[in-house]
């Protein structure tokens, strides 16, 4: 117990002095939230869309104004098609409509590939309403959308924040062994440890405890920034949140232990962990939903542990609903992974560098 306490103090001190590690652990998730929150909070929404409208001579302007009113943030009337094209080019308007009394033309800047699908949808809706309005009709068959489970007003950012939290847990867990421990090995610090009566599992336990505290503080800070600055509401189930943090941190540390054994040079373990975590970040539905990926990438995402971590975190933060048993199955799998791998591999990873 004395050894454990001493190692705990040492680990905490090492982390406190390691500015690079502190930056990665605490600042990166915050930066991600701040940058993406500011840049992408309106992705997929038409709340800020500006529409340029040209009504050619002789066309009925009233019907167009009636249909288009309130459909976008701003409607700007322009005198000619050339003016509209210039406004679209300068991004003074997002897309345009030209109405000659018979044909309704929608003009898009094809270079705005990421925005155009939203403008297209909007244009389709406006054209359908206009079509009915021109014949003095309104829809007979209406539909109402109701939300069953999960966050009703989940925006892109609402979904991304728990994904970023899950990624922080993954990074912290992987690099605790594949980065921190291998660095101790490389700097010959382990040489000193192993000549003491300390057991390898005691050192690992101390690393686990310190990482758990760090992960908890870092994810809570990120969550607090997201809720305060971007007014995102999370209905956090704290029991599940804590259970997920513990199990996922242990599980990813177990994965980090495997990486350490797969490479010859200790420093390569950190590189391998870095590459794997980046690959997972892009294929696990953290920044863009799995559903918009092509089938082979969707298949790949199902093989990524981070996909399940992100889903579990979304469930724990109330963004997405899932079967409670599935959540506990994910936590159990990660816990089992950590408990099976860490003590089992401890003696192989906590050993000095061969000279």
């Amino acid at each position, binding site marked *: 117990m004395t050894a454990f306490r001493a190692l705990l103090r040492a680990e905490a001190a090492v982390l406190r002095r390691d500015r*690079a590690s502190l*930056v990665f652990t605490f600042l*990166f998730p915050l*930066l991600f939230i701040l*940058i*993406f929150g*500011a*840049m*992408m909070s309106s992705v997929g929404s038409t709340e800020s869309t500006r529409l340029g409208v040209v009504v050619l001579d002789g066309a009925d302007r009233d019907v167009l104004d009636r249909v288009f009113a309130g459909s976008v943030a701003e409607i700007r009337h322009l005198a000619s098609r050339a003016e509209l*094209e210039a406004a679209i*080019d*300068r*991004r003074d308007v997002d897309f345009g409509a*030209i109405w000659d009394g018979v*044909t309704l*033309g*929608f*003009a*898009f*800047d*094809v*270079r*705005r*590939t*990421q*925005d155009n*699908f939203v403008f297209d949808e909007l*244009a389709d809706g406006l*054209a*359908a309403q206009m079509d*009915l309005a*021109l*014949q003095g*009709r309104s829809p*007979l*068959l*209406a*539909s*109402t*959308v*109701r*939300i069953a*489970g*999960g966050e009703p007003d*989940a925006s892109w950012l609402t979904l991304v924040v728990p994904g970023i939290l899950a990624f922080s847990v993954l990074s912290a867990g992987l690099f605790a062994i594949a980065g921190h421990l291998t660095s101790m090995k490389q700097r010959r610090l382990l040489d000193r440890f192993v000549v003491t009566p300390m057991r390898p599992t005691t050192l690992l336990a101390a690393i686990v405890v310190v990482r758990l505290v760090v992960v908890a503080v870092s994810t809570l800070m990120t969550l607090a920034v997201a809720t305060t600055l971007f007014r995102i509401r999370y209905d956090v189930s704290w029991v599940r949140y804590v259970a997920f943090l513990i199990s996922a941190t242990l599980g990813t540390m177990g994965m980090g232990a495997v990486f350490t054994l797969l490479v010859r040079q200790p420093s*390569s373990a950190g*590189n391998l962990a870095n590459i794997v975590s*980046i*690959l997972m970040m*892009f*294929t696990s539905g953290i920044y*863009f939903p799995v*559903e*918009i990926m*092509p*089938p082979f*990438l969707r298949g790949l995402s199902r093989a990524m542990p981070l996909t399940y971590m992100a889903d579990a975190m*979304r469930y724990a933060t109330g963004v*997405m*609903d899932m079967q409670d048993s599935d959540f506990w199955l994910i936590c159990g799998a990660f816990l089992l992974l950590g408990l099976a791998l860490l003590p089992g591999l401890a003696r192989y990873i906590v050993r000095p560098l061969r000279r």
Partner: protein
Amino acid sequence: MAVRSIARAYIITSLRERITLFWFLAFPLLLLVLLTFVFGNVGNSVRTSFDVTLVNFDDGRDARAAAALAGAMATLAATEDGTAPLFVLHLPPVDADRSAFLVSELNELRVGRRAVVVEIPLGLSASVDAAARGAASATLAVEIHKSGGRTGSDMAASIVEHVVAGVDRSLLVQYGLFDESRTLRVERLELGAGARTFRYVDFLLPGILLMGFFTGGLFGVPGTLLFGRERRILRGYWVTPLDVPHYLAGFALGHLGLCAIQFACVWGVARFALGADVPLWRPLVLAALLFAAMTFLAIGFLVAAVARTANGGMALANVVNMPMMFLGGLFFPIGQLPGALRAVMLANPVTYLADLLRGLTGTAAPVLPVAASVGVPLAWIVVCALVAARRLQWDVSR
């Protein structure tokens, strides 16, 4: 001769290191392919299937609207050419209690096993019929239940809304309320690409090229210099007749050579595997790319000059990497950013270089004046060179 030898050594050493190869070549290519596959499909029909439940409470003999909607849904659940249907339709078993089935399907929806549950309420067709005869507007509506926080559910619900709108149109025609011959003509006009077809990969390619140059400069330059200094490799050079200016010239030449290799690989994959059509081989575009590579080389020297140790240099590069990359509009257009982030964006040379390159290649309308797009990166080169000249140490002992 010495300059060429240093350049060759720089290129060979970089290409021998697997980690450098990953970040310098594999990562940009991976990102290019991945983002093209993901976002290149946005708005188009992605081959996917949604589990959709239809509970029809309005299935009497005269239920015209409900029957039409159920028929339209069934059409989307039919298989074509052996491919998976858009909807995998779940219907209540015959003689089952539909209310109980609806409750259980809503539970399935809640936990993600259904994308959407469509409920046709009893009396919907009568309500539509009454509205068609001018009695009043329809009082009942089709209920589309979707799950919050799931993109798949949003997508499926949007498709069902389109199906409902289509059925509505056919009902209006059937009731004689809509003259199909007077249907509004709708046109789609595409601006900004001239005569060529424009795809997402065309927008992405300049950004990926700049990202590759940027990470190469930011990590490659301080990495080589600082690790070379710490491992006393640089000291080996100083005992030869080689002086710092010649070493620098060789180093810069090697770095630009590496950028050229990277450019050729990324362009080749984008052009021949992904079908990108970006006019990169124009003299002005190539000059802009060279200018970008030199700017990032200078930033790399700045990092090497500011950091005391190699690990410190890498940490510093990591810290500035993400904000500069994402606040430079490399992958996503930067919209209306708030105060502090906008200041970072405007001070960021990546913003100007991306705008310049996209403007020259016609992949986006430039939003910044050309003078700024050249002036700001140029100012960065000058400042970085001055700081590096004053602070960069070429040996551990000096």
